[in-house]
Each structure stands twice: as structure tokens, then as C-alpha cells.
């Protein structure tokens, strides 16, 4: 057991400030355990979202020493014993209270993306897919919607106005996932991402990839290939046709 110095942002949409706490930390604990101890012993009114405590539900996103992280997956042992741990709410979204932010922007953008479109000519039980095809987009499906990538992307984080035009990295990988789905019947996923969801705003800084707790290579595996192919398609009808034939023969 040791004592640790914590600073936690307290406040609401009217403003707030960092509050200082000295709190006990035990071996093996994560930052969320310490937040819970603060609630239990010092400040029961500290607002925080959490649920699974296992990095699966995406609830507990916040910034720890300025870096977007999951509170439940950040081990206390990664900090120096004398280091102050500062916990603040996600910066790209409006604060509701303390560590809780209003992430509805992300759901709005998700809703605008057309859903998986089943092929019209196949009946229940007739879908055939190769495991490699399932796996190709599996990486993107691991997304837990923690929105850390959305929070860190400078396009959204630093320019409130861009939120209208750019849907953000999370939505881009969803588009890429559907684009790679061997049975998705919609053929314009890349164009939609480029034209309706602002893919062009992304300038490939890869900050989103760095913070993703699921280690999804958002930029390299989703955004860059989509950007390249969206360009191809627009200028080269043969490339477009080829990609569709490839998709079909796979199925």
C-alpha cells in the first residue's frame, strides 16, 4: 500500500477546476479502482461512467495526464510513485459533470452511416464466406466505441466547426469494415465516406491509432486504403469494376 497524489477535474458545463486528493493505492490496481476509492472515502459525489471494468464496454474513457485512456485499463504501476496522476474528462466533447462528457455527437454520426445491406439474391442459410474474408474486417469490428480516437483526432478536437463535416476515425473504420464485408451489397461505401462523412479532412497523423485500446490500425488499415481506392474509383472505371468482380467471386 502506498499513498498517491491525484488531481481530478471537478465541475460541470458552467466550468470547474482540478481538485487535489491524496489517496491510498494497492498493488495491482488500475486508475478506476482509485477513482472508486475516492468515491468511497472522500467524495461520493464524483461522477464517472464505468461498467465492465475489463476494457470491453468502452464506458470509462477519460484523459490521464493529458492522454486519452480507459480508466479501467490503466495500471497504477505504470506511474512513478511520486508522480501526480491527473484525470480530466475527454476534451473534444461537452462536459456533463466531472469525468462524464456528452458523447452524443458520435452516435449522431453513426446513425448517418447506412447499415449493412444484405445481398438481395441470397436466402437465409445461403450465405457463404471464407474465414479470411471474415478476418479481414475483424480488426475493425473489435472497436468498443470508447471514442478515444474521436477525442484525440485534432480535426475534431481543435476545431469545433469541423464536427459538422468530419465524422471522425471511429466512423471511418465502420465504413471500411462494411466496405470489406464480402456480402455487403452497397457499392459506394468509400464514396460515402469521402463525400458525406468528410474523409478528406483526415491528414493521416495517426494519433487515433496511437490511443486505440483495441490496437486497431485505424489509419494504416482503414483510412489510407479507403482514401486510395476512393480516388481510384472515381477516375478509373476499370479498377472499380475489377474490385467488384473480386468481391463477388470471393463470396
Amino acid at each position, binding site marked *: 500500500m502506498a499513498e498517491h497524489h491525484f488531481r481530478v477535474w471537478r465541475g460541470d458545463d458552467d466550468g470547474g477546476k482540478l481538485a487535489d486528493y491524496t489517496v491510498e493505492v494497492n498493488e495491482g490496481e488500475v486508475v478506476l479502482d482509485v477513482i472508486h476509492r475516492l468515491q468511497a472515502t472522500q467524495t461520493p459525489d464524483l461522477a464517472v461512467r*464505468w*461498467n465492465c471494468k475489463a476494457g*470491453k*464496454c468502452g464506458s470509462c474513457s477519460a484523459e490521464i495526464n493529458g492522454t486519452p485512456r480507459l480508466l479501467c485499463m490503466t495500471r497504477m504501476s505504470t506511474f512513478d510513485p511520486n508522480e501526480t496522476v491527473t484525470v480530466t474528462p475527454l476534451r473534444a466533447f461537452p462536459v456533463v459533470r466531472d469525468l462524464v462528457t456528452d458523447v452524443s455527437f458520435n*452516435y449522431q454520426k453513426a446513425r448517418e452511416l447506412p447499415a449493412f445491406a444484405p445481398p438481395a439474391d441470397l436466402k437465409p442459410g445461403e450465405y457463404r464466406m471464407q474465414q479470411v474474408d471474415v478476418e479481414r474486417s475483424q480488426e475493425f469490428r473489435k472497436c*468498443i466505441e470508447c471514442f478515444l480516437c474521436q477525442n484525440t483526432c485534432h480535426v475534431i478536437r481543435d476545431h469545433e466547426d469541423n464536427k459538422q463535416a468530419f465524422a471522425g476515425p471511429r466512423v471511418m473504420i465502420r465504413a471500411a469494415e462494411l466496405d470489406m464485408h464480402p456480402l455487403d451489397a452497397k457499392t459506394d461505401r468509400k464514396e460515402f465516406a469521402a463525400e458525406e462523412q468528410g474523409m478528406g479532412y483526415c491528414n493521416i497523423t495517426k494519433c487515433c491509432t496511437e490511443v486505440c485500446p483495441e490496437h486497431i490500425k485505424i489509419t494504416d488499415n482503414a483510412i489510407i486504403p479507403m482514401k486510395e481506392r476512393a480516388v481510384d474509383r472515381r477516375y478509373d472505371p476499370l479498377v472499380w469494376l475489377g474490385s467488384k468482380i473480386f468481391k463477388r467471386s470471393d463470396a
Partner: protein
Amino acid sequence: MRTTAPDVSASGPLSYDVVIVGGGAAGLRAAIAVAETAPALSVAIVSKVYPMRSHTVSAEGGAAAVIKDVDSLDEHFRDTVSGGDWLCDQDAVEFFVEEAPKELLRLEHWGCPWSREPDGHVAVRPFGGMKQQRTWFAADKTGFHLLHALFQTSLKHQQIVRHDEWFATKLLVDDGRVGGVAGIELATGRIETIAAKAVILCTGGCGRVYPFTTNANIKTGDGMALAYRAGGPLKDMEFVQYHPTGLPFTGILITEAARAEGGWLLNRDGYRYLQDYDLGKPEPHPVFKSMELGPRDRLSQAFVKEMEKGRTIPTSYGPIVHLDLRHLGEQTIDTKLPFVRELCRDYERIDPVRELIPVRPVVHYMMGGVHTDIDGAAGVAGLYAAGETACVSINGANRLGSNSLPECLVFGARAGEAAASHAASAPGPAASLAAQAADERRRLEELLRRDGGRERVSTLRQEMQAAMEAGAGIYRSRDDLVKSVDRVHELQDRFRSVRLTDHSLTFNTELIAALELEFMLEVAGSILHSALMREESRGAHQRVDFPRRDDEQFLAHSLICRNDDGSWRIEYPPVTITRWPPGERVYGR
């Protein structure tokens, strides 16, 4: 967050044809069913967390449904009924096994990426208590992928409105008919009522009434308590499933797939102890319905017996046994069980390729729940329930792993259809609901502003959890149960003087914790009473003072009802048997 403006003037009360409480697998499936079968109806999903945070995301192993030629609906039926120690309603099981494959295929059409065989067909794996390979999976994140596909599909239907982070506190009931729900919008603290012609409870399980559980923080049995307080009976509450392989301390689950792939359970002496408990002979490779692939109730009970014989391993987090995956080799572990390796590394700092995994039984699943018929109707007109919070019952005295995700789909859909047809002809909400809503508002405001109470939520919660473990654990006795019943009554009294330090309206987590505790105390009481009254041993309910199954008296469901004064009564309606009379449960032979 409210996703779409409701169809009423901004200041008027919210009102929908169907309201669904819960946005997990069951809730989303129900909403889609309403939207598809009755597109003209308005439907709302209220959920205390964003749907994608629901506990369904945690399900790893898979979803059972017959798909292989060598398999048959009859075998799935028989595995489920014997797994449930004949307490399942067989008409419901018949319907379930028939619908499950259709539902899983439908999910595929909604984009769920089922893992594949080399020929492109859906892949299936063995699971505990199942005689054939019939568990579909999507890597080792089945529930997660399934929930995503459902969520994305629900977005297609414009008439589905969501109230995310909206906590339901009370069902509004007038003259035996449901008229809506009252609750709190977390972001604003606004106390609201939502009128509805039908309400479907899809609130998940209640593992949090115990101290050591695989269940996430939100699994506090809210739907069970909401129904119980509104006059709906709860069914078979004494049947609580312990999963045999939880990591000590955190309670994080090591999926049954680890045993299905060939993992062994070893005691202190490195001995596969299950062979001593009538579960078959140890073979090097996994055998269906044998040894480590026996049903969960029997495996968890064997652990306690080993502990009594002093053959478990003591640790600072209590006694454990070992799960051995080493003989599977790195390649199998990495392709079939990557997540298990990840968890062991992150939480135990061990590598299962070279080391033994410490495990112990952990509270996992609730067989019992809101009593419903096969349509999901819950005994109060207009009230329905589906998913883990409901008890139809296909799980009987012990659920088989991988039956509950398909249960959420099959009965979520059915409840959605039934609620839609009820709502299409039901009259509008009764006038008296306004008065009830006002009462609820007063109650919540009083709780929020109350001063001078002494009791703290976290203390009461800990004491309740300890009482549950002591009284209603893997083995139970009359004496222990009576003590725990008294404890829970005392805690309910003390709850009346609970004190909140947070009086804010915005995202008040302390207030929610208090309301959840109140629900849990209700649920805990119903589990203990039902366990006390069932004087036999069946499936997950093992009484040391009544060690045998007693079909004469207890081939029946326990239906516990709450009287207006808070006291209770239990009735025992018979189990529905269509074609398979009770027999012996046979494993490993």
C-alpha cells in the same frame, strides 16, 4: 441523450406505443421486432447505459443453435432439458430450439460475422453439457459482435427512439394494466414519466447481489424488482448459476471455450478431480458432456467438495484450483483462445502457454426472473419481459452455456411481436397515472434531498452481498438461509435511513447506486425466500439438508409474489412436460 424528438409537444409528457427498458441483446431484438411487425407503432428504448455498454458485450463463448447435419433439434431439446434438471417448460424449449437457428441466420443478414469452416459454412464449437458441436461464435467476442449487429440494425428504423442513460425507477400500473414507466434522465436529473401501452423489461441479470461475480456493475436486477413491485410474480429465483472458472479477485470469466478446446481442471495434486464426481473418465481429448465439459452446476459443486477435502489451493483471495491449457500448445491458444491469453497476461500476469491459470467458481447467471408465458407476457396486462431478466423457462434449474444469447434473440423477438399486437388494440393511458407519477417524483426528490440519515449505500451493499454468499451460495441449508433472510430484512429497514451526500441533479451516480441497492435488496429477498422454501436439491439449488431431487413435491416452478404490505407468498405451478418425463441426468457415461 435523446436521439430523436418525441412525437409530442416539448412540454407535454412523453408517450409511445411500446417502451422497452434495456438496450442489450434482448431489448434491441425486441425493438426491431416491434418496428418490423408493426411499423406504424412508435417504440422507445430506455437504457441506463448506452446500449453498446450493455452486459451482452461481455459474452465470449458463443450462441447455440442446430446447424450441422449430424445434429438435430431433438438433441438440442434433450441437452437443454436434462441440463436444466427437468425444470424447463418443454413447450418453450421446443419453440426455442426451432427458432434459434433462424435467429442466428437473421443476425448474419444483419451483418454479424460468424466464424467459418473451411468450406465457407458457419463454424460451430463444442460447449459444456451439449452433445454436439452447435455453438456458433464470432471469434471470442460473440456477444459483442452480436450486439453491434443488432444496434446497427436498430438504427435503420427511424421509429425506434432511444433515451440513453435513462434510469427506470417504477412501472406505472393502473387497475392491473401497465401504463408506462417513471425514471430519471441522468444527464439532467429530470424525473420523467413515459406513457406506454406496453412495456417490455429487458434489463438483464442480477449477479451484483453477490460479492464475487462475472457480472458488470449495472447487473442489479432492476427489471425483476420493477415487475415484482408492480405485482408481477418472479419465477425460480433460487436458481443462481456459478460458473466454474472465474479468475480470483477480479471475478473475470475464463470462457467455457477454454475447456471445450481441451482445457483440464486440476486440484492441488495436479489431478483431474472431476473423475471422482460421476462426470466420466479423464481422456486426453475433450469428450462431449463429460469431465470438463459437464454442466456448470456439477462442476462448481465438485469444487466445493474438493475444498472440503482440502484438495484446493489456498491463496490470499480464497481457495482455487487450476485450469491447465499448456498441452493445447501456443498455436491453438492463439487462434482459438487469444482473449484468454490476453486476460491472463493483463490480470494475473501469467502466460497460459506455460503456466497454470488459477480459477474458482463465480456467480454468473440468473436462471430465474420475471415470470412470463411463452409470449413473454408477465402476468400484468401490457407487461412483457425477455432475456436474462425473464424466466420463460428454458433454463430450468441450470442453464447450459451458449443458450442465453439465442434466448435473448428468440424471446426478445417474440415478446416484441406480442407487445406490438397488444399495443395496437390497447386503450390509451389511464388518467390516474399522473397521480402515480407525482408520487414517484415526490419519493425520488425526498431521497435526493434527505438529510440526517446515517446509513451509507456502500456499507449496506457489502453487507447484503455477504449475506447472499453465506445463505444462498453453491450449497445451502435451512439455518444459513434463515439467518440471511433476517439479515436482508434488517438491511431493508436500514435502507430507509440511507444518506446521500450528493444532492446534485446532474449525473448523480450516488443516487443511482442507492436506487439500485433498493432493487437488489428486493431481489435478494426473493432469492432467499424461494431457496428456503424449496426443500430439495435440483440443478444449481443444492440443499445439504435435502440432498435429493423430489419430483413428487417440486417438479414445479416457484412463483413468488409480493403482497401490498411487502410480505410475500409462494405458489408452485407444475412444470410443462410435453414429451420427456423426468429421468436421471447422465454425464460422462
